[in-house]
């Protein structure tokens, strides 16, 4: 079964999904790729963002994307605080590889259980005018439920990319894992810089979470399902590369969509992870890696 129309639809769906994947992975690219902090709890923070969007939407009818933007500073502070704890407990003692990883594993569980205790395990969704619409031209359709998050994702990427490449602090974040000494010589405190970077990383989770709940219904443990995906993208991207993350997200999205359309959806996730395993085995530095 093949038609040009189906192919175009599959590509559109893949691109839109890929943009969302990339948005979800952006925070990890910063924390894992640039700061060398393996935050396995990142998807849990995203789910936290989803629930905040849900809460504001169901209580006051607030738009989920607006909520996401409003909560970026709050998440930033949470992230900065979490890094402080992480630094004092693990990084300073050069002990992040094993125990730091276990720490985030525990944090993931705690966030998840806390959400269950407050909201229960029911699936939650949000209401917004752009959910359920779509633009059609001939047999080609673009669902706004996917298109709006895609645009927000691109905007978020642009903002983070500009910050990282145009400002002193942004460049310092990119440099901090490579050359602490040079940073110190330039008068920047590496710990403060990493705190800033991790804050940004968690900050993106607020918005990514809002995008997530626009696209799918969310329950507290749904974040686990995305651990693999976000790490896959971060690695495929070449750690720390922000444009690479976008490209890797799109590749994964398109691959899943094509496989799902033409070969049967049950193989979609395996193909995506196949790409990851292949990337790890043959090009561990990733697409945009150094």
């Amino acid at each position, binding site marked *: 079964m093949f038609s040009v129309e189906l192919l175009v639809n599959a590509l559109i769906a893949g691109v839109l999904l890929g943009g969302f994947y990339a948005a979800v992975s952006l925070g990890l690219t910063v924390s894992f790729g640039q700061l060398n902090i393996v935050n396995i709890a990142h998807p849990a923070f995203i789910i936290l963002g989803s629930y905040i969007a849900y809460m504001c939407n169901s209580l006051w009818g607030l738009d989920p994307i607006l909520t996401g933007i409003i909560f970026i500073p709050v998440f930033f502070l949470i992230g900065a605080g979490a890094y402080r704890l992480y630094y004092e407990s693990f990084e300073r003692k050069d002990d992040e590889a094993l125990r730091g990883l276990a720490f985030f594993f525990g944090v993931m569980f705690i966030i998840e259980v806390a959400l269950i205790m407050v909201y229960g395990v*029911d*699936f939650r969704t949000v209401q917004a005018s752009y959910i359920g619409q779509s633009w059609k031209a001939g047999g080609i359709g673009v669902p706004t439920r996917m298109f709006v998050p895609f645009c927000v994702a691109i905007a978020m990427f642009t903002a983070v990319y500009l910050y990282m490449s145009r400002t002193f602090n942004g460049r310092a974040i990119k440099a901090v894992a490579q050359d602490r000494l040079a940073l110190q010589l330039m008068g920047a405190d590496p710990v403060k810089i990493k705190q800033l970077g991790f804050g940004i990383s968690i900050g993106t989770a607020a918005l990514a979470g809002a995008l997530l709940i626009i696209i799918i219904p969310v329950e507290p443990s749904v974040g686990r399902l995305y651990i693999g995906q976000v790490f896959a993208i971060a690695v495929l991207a070449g750690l720390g590369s922000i444009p690479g993350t976008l490209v890797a997200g799109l590749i994964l999205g398109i691959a899943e969509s094509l496989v799902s359309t033409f070969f049967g959806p049950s193989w979609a996730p395996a193909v995506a992870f196949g790409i990851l395993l292949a990337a790890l085995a043959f090009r561990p530095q990733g697409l945009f890696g150094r």
Partner: protein
Amino acid sequence: MLMKSKHKLSRRGWLKRSLAMAIVAGAVALTAPAQANDTIKIGFSMALTGGLAGAGKGALIAMQVWAEDTNAAGGLLGKQVELVYYDDQTNPANVPGIYTKLLDVDDVDFVVSGYGTNLIAPAMPIVMQRGLVFPSLFGLAVNEKFNYPNYFQIMPAGPEPLTDWSKGFYSVAMAQDPPPKTIALVGADAEFAKNAVKGARIQAEELGLEIVYDESYHPKTPDFTPIVNAIQARNPDMVFVGSYPPDSVGMVKAATEVGLKTKIFGGGMVGLQFASIMTALGPKLNGIVNYDFWVPEPTLKFEGVEAFLAKYQKAAEGQGVDPLGYYLQPYAYAYLQVLGQAITATNSADHAVIGEYIRNNSFDTVVGNVSFAPNGEWAKTRVLMVQYQGIEDNELATFTKAGTRVVLYPEEWKSGTVNYPYAE
């Protein structure tokens, strides 16, 4: 090396300590709650955390309502009823331990199952070994392999759960003129959905329908647009979906966005019966034909069901569970009703006697009159096919009204007529 010998000493010490700790902890586990012989204890495991907790918690509230009702009416065999339950965390590995604890430590008089096939099956060897009556809650074809005579399943799937499940879907479609010729089958890669699609496939083949699409998808699929596009490209007359709550939502959203054109759409979508999902989807549900177990239609107002729902809805407030409680909850009440009625009728606590009685009698419950086939399923299927009709908003109250989910099948309970086709 010098230090090593020191290690050896302390290591030996730790081993002793850890053993001691294990023994102490074991002893704690053994300590049974105070024994009391003036109650009838009914034990079960229930998913109160994990993936099925939404349903599990709702079922538990319904069961507690039954216990209160029963005790208010004087209990069973002159004794008060006490429910003893533990959280299985939606993890089958916890179930065998829980049931042995219930039977050996808590000395319960009866056990009933937890919610869902995965969590029922692990208890089977234990209850079979002891010859216990085992009322079960929403297991799909569990007894097919065990062939246990004292297994009684309350979900109204019927004696052939695989095909009975989707019978109504075909029955409604094939009655149309002209009847549909092609069908697309799609389902999640997980236990229930696979079975539902399997049953649908068997019947499609029997009816001579051409299956133009037959695929399963990973349960965590985030976007269903590609799947719906692929289905649409085949232009099927019917689309049968076997899905779980998150993917049911995704599928409905994608179908409305893509503008899925087919004559009948739905079938085995779990989740569309839940209040939270119905209010989230609202008008997008219109036209979907899907299975259900109970809806507030005039044909289904069985004795006691409204009183039960009123109590349930009051108890459910603020518990984070389904506020309406139409789907599973009456059945959770009913499977205890069956057990209770059998105990009272036989005036016995002997499992063999009670099992014999349940096999040979029918029971009036809040879900209607129930009798069991030899394999422990309902003697006759009552999987409802309902169609969502005339939904204009996302308010909870909308779904409490008759006419929003019209019963199309079985004929006996029919409450309206089908809007056909779904979309053209």
